[in-house]
């Protein structure tokens, strides 16, 4: 547990975030890797200061480094690897289809956002018809 390690984790998160905000899948992937390393440091820090390897009969247990965060980090490393492999395959697929690995904006979402005005016009028309019916009812 030291300011230096806190800084290292924060720095890895910051650069990782920077990469996550890119359009290229391969850069996003590297961002995932960096954020993964950052969180491993955080996990490790949760075990307090380091120590000797937690192997029984090699040292006094009071000198051991905390084993539980180590187990968690081990899981984390392996899972991060799984995610990386999957994303790499995704990038590969993207390249096969579009010859690029850009994560495009969702076209449908854009259309939906743009339809907002069209919808409004249609709705206005429908509602105006009903208004007219109401007027007639009033008369």
């Amino acid at each position, binding site marked *: *547990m*030291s*300011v*230096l*390690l*806190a*800084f*290292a984790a*924060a720095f*890895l*998160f910051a*650069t*990782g*975030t*920077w990469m*996550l*905000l890119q*359009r290229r899948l*391969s*850069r996003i*992937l*590297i961002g995932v890797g*960096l954020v993964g390393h950052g969180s491993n*440091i955080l996990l*490790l820090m949760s075990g*307090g*200061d*380091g120590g*000797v390897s937690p*192997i*029984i*009969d090699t040292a006094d247990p009071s000198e051991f480094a*905390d*084993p*539980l965060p*180590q*187990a968690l*980090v081990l*899981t984390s490393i*392996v899972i991060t*690897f799984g995610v990386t*492999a*999957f994303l790499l395959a995704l990038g590969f*697929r993207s390249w*096969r289809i579009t010859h*690029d690995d850009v994560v*495009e*904006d969702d*076209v449908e*979402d854009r259309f939906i*956002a*743009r339809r*907002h005005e069209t919808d*409004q016009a249609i*709705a206005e028309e429908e509602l105006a018809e*009903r*208004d007219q019916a*109401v*007027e007639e009812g*009033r008369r």
Partner: protein
Amino acid sequence: MFFLLLLHLVIGIAIVAAGKMLGRRAFLVAAIAPLVTLLWAAAKAPGVLDGDPVTESFAWIPQLGIDIDMRLDAFALLMVAVISGIGLLICIYSMGYFSHDKPGLARLAGVLVLFAGAMLGVVLSDQLIALFIFWELTSVTSYLLIGNDDTNPRARAASMQAIFITGAGGLVLLAGLIIIGQAGGTYRMSELLADPPTGGAVNAGIVLVLIGAFTKSAQAPFSSWLPAAMVAPTPVSAYLHSATMVKAGVYLVARLAPMFAMTGSWRLVVMVIGASTMSIGGLRALRQTDLKLLLAYGTVSQLGFMMLLLGVGEYHIAEAGLVLILAHAAFKAALFMVVGIIDHETGTRDITELHGFGPSWRLVQVVAVVSAASMAGIPPLFGFVAKEKALDGYLEHGDFAGATAVLVVIVLASILTFAYSARFVLGVFGAFGDVDRPVVSRTAHAPGAVFVGPSVVLAVATIVFGIVPGLLDDLVEGATTALYPASEPKALHLFAGFNTALLLSVVIIVCGVLLTVLRTRVTGVQRRASEVIRPIPSGEQGYLGVLRGISAVANRVTATVQNGSLPIYIAIIILTVTLVPAAAFATEIGPLPQWVEEPAHVVLVAVMVAAALGASIVRHRIAAALMLGAVGYAMAGLYVARGAPDLALTQFSIETLSTVLFVLVLRFLPRSWRHRAPSIAAPMRIAVAAAVGVGIFIFALSAGNARSSVDEPSMSEVMVEQSLPKGKGHNVVNVILVDFRGWDTMGEITVLLVAAIGAVSLARPGRRRSDDHAPVFEEILDAGDEPALPEPLR
């Protein structure tokens, strides 16, 4: 009582499930439910009328003190008589109304029974939460019944409108009921009546409850859904939207008025809303040419009348309200049935298209005249008894502020009621028939006995209870006492002597006749008046305005939030996740820990930082991947320095494997990434990244402190102790993974397996597109007719 609800549920679902098999006979099956209910009620009636209510209870959520308490007192009995009595007649009437193969018939019949069950639940519940649930069920079933003809857009729109307004009112009602229940310490109405709560919160609660009741009973300004709901088949309109469901609001107000009429603004609100509803409904009814709409606005007006009678918390007046509930159910259901018969046989219900009927229609016309006369308050009919009682109540016992004003409104609105009742009768006789319109009604063949029978029964009831109102004394007096335990209700009379109420009735009838005689002029005045008031939005326009507003806001929110850009989504998520907690953590940082644990760390962190910086700057793909690898190896070094050899080993091998994978894939891709305008400008991205970094830094420091402040033996110490004896292993980390947290590792393996399957299927050589070139974002956009996106969006 529960068996009755269950019976309705079972019969309703069975009919829906049977589907087309039953055809029109579905209504015969449906009639079982109200018939059994009536028999049951008749069996219980003597005891209940003696002031000995039947109760049943069922512990539903004991932890919250919510039981379903059912209670049949005399008022509930009166409502049950209306619900099941009219329900039975409607079932028979429906056999004449619907053709055998009408689509959706079984659904309609089944839901009608379900509705009847829900409505019984409303009037039998003694517990406010249970009442609310049945209340909402009536809204839902009403929605289904209005929209039963699901291919008709008008029906769908009307059902939406009904559930929007009553549903919103239901939520308000729930809030009000909870406030009252919490303040009173009980949700049972019978207990609240004995000791009604008071206080500021209760004042707010009763206003909320009133709003809920007003939406349900179509009071101004929430009445627009009721005329719109007339698109439903006439049996539904007659049953739900005149005789029963719309009276739920009146029912609730009647139940709570004895407790809260004197509290806060209850009485004022009820008087203002009831009086406006009664007048506006009457004025509007007078303008309609559609017989069914005329009745709908008439119902709105009468519901306002009932509010004025049952809501002011004065038992003499409330007694009149109870009579009005019965009288209204009889005449209004009969009138709706008449309209349904006319509509069914002639295909129109517009009074300008009706030219009178042939002699075989006499019976229908008699029913129409008797029921309309009862509505107008002409002796010796049931409606007259109710109106006399109401006038007498306000004259003799209206000693509270505003009572005289309400009495004036009642008299004026009753004149309108007379006028629109007369308009209805004249319409049925063809007085408004437009000579240029096609004649449809004279040639229409007469309706069958099953079709007319139920309305005749109601008309007979209207006459009998008008001439001998004393038949209902026990029921009405019992119901009044159930609401106001200390009351001394007066017996019902057709003729109570020459008094002021009788004089007012004469005034109402004379003025009503005048309005009817001068009807062309009245119409002219109304048309001019409606021109004047046009700028004032009606309830209907208010509803449409709200719909417009919701749709505009929803569109804008969707366009903003769902903008389709992954980086923006990520930025929002990651900023929220880091900065919101960081604000809390910032207060917990405390003294800074040591700067450096070991000198070796400085070197490793320096490598890490340099490599991470490099990875995020270089444009060369493989170089970036190798830099990431360097970060990984530095991490492995850190693990060694921190006493974690297992981690170091794993990290080394995984990092090597990852780098190989990276190179495998990246060699296909262009060597470097050409620049493309990102969704977020670079300074913004740097700001986000820096903010995240700061957030994590704060989190790391404060979380580290949290650990040192705990004294108890940590879980890790237990694991170290138990590693050898329980796990039979020296390497504690390994024992944790495969033993103490074995299931966790199991899950991890599964995740890896899934990821592997995904990766393999993605990477498998798929078919290549023949044109060797798939459309990308810009091309999709350019191809359509859609205008090009504005520059900032691209």
